C-alpha cells in the first residue's frame, strides 16, 4: 500500500505509541487480545500495516468489526495455531501476558507465527509494589494492578528480572527494551526492575547454532 497516510494524532496511551513505533511500516501484524482494535486500526491507517486480531470479548469484537478489522473471537493459542511459521512480521501482546494460562506456550507460538514479538507487562518488581507488600503485608494494589487477590485476572505476574531470565532460558534475543514509570513516563533502563511500572520488550528467536 502506497497511498498517502494521514498524520497520526497524539496518543492517549504512551505505551500504545511506543509499541506502534516498534512496528515497521507495512508490516504484517497480529495483535493478541486486541480489545476494541484501536492499536490495530492505527497501525493499519498510519503505518500501512496489514493487521489481524484475536479477542475473547464479544462486545470488543463488535467494535473491531465496526472499525473494519478482521478479528478472531476466542482463545489466543487456538487463534494462532492455523497460521504458518513466520506468517506475521510482528505479533503483539499488550499487557496481557500475565493473564494467560500458559505464558511459555503463548510466547513460543508468538515467535512461531511471527518473526518478532512485542510484549508489554506490568512490572511486579516496581518499588511501590515491593513496599506495599513489605509494609502492609497484603497483596499489592495499584493503578496498574487494580484487582484484589481473589478477583485478579493476573495469574502469572512477573518482574523485569524474571522476564529477562526467562528469555535467556528460552533462547530469545531481546532486540529492544523500553521502560515506563507507573504513570507512563519513559525512563532509562537504569535499575529498571525497581523503577519501571511497565516494560515493553521486542524479542526474536536467536539464530540456531549450526
Amino acid at each position, binding site marked *: 500500500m502506497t*497511498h498517502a497516510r494521514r498524520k497520526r494524532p497524539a496518543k492517549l496511551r504512551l505505551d500504545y505509541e511506543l509499541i506502534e513505533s516498534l512496528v515497521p511500516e507495512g508490516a504484517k501484524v497480529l495483535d493478541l487480545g486486541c480489545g476494541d482494535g484501536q492499536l490495530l486500526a492505527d497501525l493499519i491507517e498510519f503505518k500501512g500495516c496489514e493487521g*489481524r486480531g484475536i479477542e475473547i470479548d*464479544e462486545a470488543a*469484537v*463488535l467494535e*473491531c*468489526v*465496526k*472499525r*473494519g*478489522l*478482521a*478479528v*478472531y*473471537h*476466542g482463545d489466543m493459542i*487456538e487463534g494462532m*495455531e*492455523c*497460521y*504458518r511459521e513466520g*506468517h506475521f512480521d510482528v505479533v503483539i501482546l499488550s499487557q496481557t501476558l500475565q493473564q494467560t494460562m500458559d505464558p511459555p506456550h503463548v510466547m513460543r507460538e508468538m515467535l512461531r507465527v511471527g518473526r518478532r514479538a512485542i510484549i508489554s507487562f506490568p512490572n511486579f518488581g516496581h518499588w511501590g509494589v515491593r513496599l506495599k507488600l513489605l509494609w502492609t503485608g497484603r497483596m499489592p494494589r495499584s493503578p496498574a494492578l487494580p484487582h484484589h487477590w481473589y478477583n485478579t485476572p493476573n495469574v502469572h505476574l512477573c518482574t523485569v528480572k524474571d522476564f529477562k531470565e526467562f528469555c535467556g532460558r528460552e533462547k530469545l534475543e531481546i532486540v529492544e527494551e523500553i521502560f515506563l514509570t507507573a504513570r507512563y513516563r519513559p525512563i532509562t533502563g537504569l535499575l529498571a526492575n525497581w523503577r519501571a511500572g511497565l516494560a515493553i520488550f521486542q524479542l526474536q528467536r536467536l539464530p540456531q547454532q549450526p
Partner: protein
Amino acid sequence: MSIDDVVPISQGSRFGGPNSVGLVQTQFLTFAQPPGELELECGQKLGPITLAYETCGTLSPQRDNAVLILHALSGDAHVAGYHTPGDRKPGWWDLFIGPGKAIDTTKYFVVCANIIGGCKGSTGPSSVNPATGRPFGLGFPMVTISDMVRTQKVLMDRLDIPRWLSMTGGSMGGFQVLEWVVRYPDRVASAIPIATAARLSAQGIAFNEVGRQAIMADPNWRGGGYYEGDAPRAGLAIARMIGHITYLSDEQMHAKFGRRLRDRAGFGYDFKTEFEVESYLKYQGDSFVRRFDANSYLYITKSMDYFDLAAGRGSLVEVFEGVRAEFLVLSISSDWLFPTYQSKEIVKALKANGIPTTFLELQSPYGHDSFFLPNEQMSAMIAGFLENVQRRVREAAAAEGPEP
C-alpha cells in the same frame, strides 16, 4: 382472530412501517431450455429450469451493491417485506433486511432465490416434467449444493451483476455461501456464512435420514407419486418435528415449555397430546405440511448430506486457495446441529490462506435457529461488516478506475 388484527399498520407510504421493505413481488427466470439443458453434478440433465426470486432495494448505477441471501432447508425467495397487504407475516429474514436494518436496503440491493429442488416457485420434484406432462416426483434428478449455486450464477448474469458485494446464509444457506466463494472467487467480494459447516456431520446426515424415512414410511407417499392424491402429511410432519428439535436447545426447551401440561391439570394416562412441548412440535409439523412438499424435503436434505466443500478439491486449506472474498463467520454458542467447532474449521482454513476473516461465536441460548431471531449483536456485526466492505470495494474501484 381476523387477519386485520395481525397486519402491521401501514406507516407513511411504505406498507409494514418505515423499517420494512414494503410490498414485494416474486419474479421468475426461466433458462436452460432444451437442448441447452443444465448438466447436473449427478450427470443428469435438467431443463428448462425456473428460479423464483425476489429483490429489495435498488441496484446502484455502478452495480456494486448487490447482496445475495441464501436460504436454508425450508426457506424460499420471500426474504423480506410482504406480498399483499393481507399477509400475516413478512418474509423469513425480515428482521435483518430493510431500511435501517442489518442489511440496509437503502444502501444495498438484496436478491434471494428459491433453490432448485424446492417447492416455492423454482423447479423441483413437484414441478411438471415437460416430458410427461405430470409432476416429476422421484423422476426429478438429484440436485446438489453446487447445482443450486450454478443456477444462482445464471440469475446473477441475467441481472447483470458483475460481483456480489456480499452474500450470506445460515445452515444450508451457509453451504451455498461457501460453494459460491470457492466456485466463483472473482464474483464475490465478501461472505457471511452463519451457523454452518464445510460439510454436513454424521449427526446431521443421521437426523436427515430419520426425516426421510418418516416420509417414505407414510403409505400416502407411494414412491413419491402422490400428487394426484393425498400427500404424505403424517410423514412430513414427523420429519419436521425431528428437524425442529435439532434447531432448538435443551436450555431453551426447558425455559419455554418445561414439563408443563397443556389444557390439563394432571396426567390423562393416555396418548393424547399432553405436554406443551408435544403440542408445540405438533403445531410445527402440521403448519409445515401446509406449505412444503414432501419430495422437496427428501431432495433438499439429500443435497445437504452430499455437501462436502473439500471433496475432490484437496484439504480445506487448499480449497480456499485463490478465494478473494473477505469473511465474517458467525456461529451460535448453543447450536448443537452445527456446533461452533465446525465454523472454526472454516475459519482456520481461511486464516491459513491469509484471507481477512472475522469470527464470532454469538452467545445465544436458542440453538441453531437463533439466526432467525432478533439479535442486536448479530445485526450490528453484519451492518458494520457490510459498511466496511462497501467502503473498501469503492475505494479499490476508485483507485483502479480509468483516469477521467
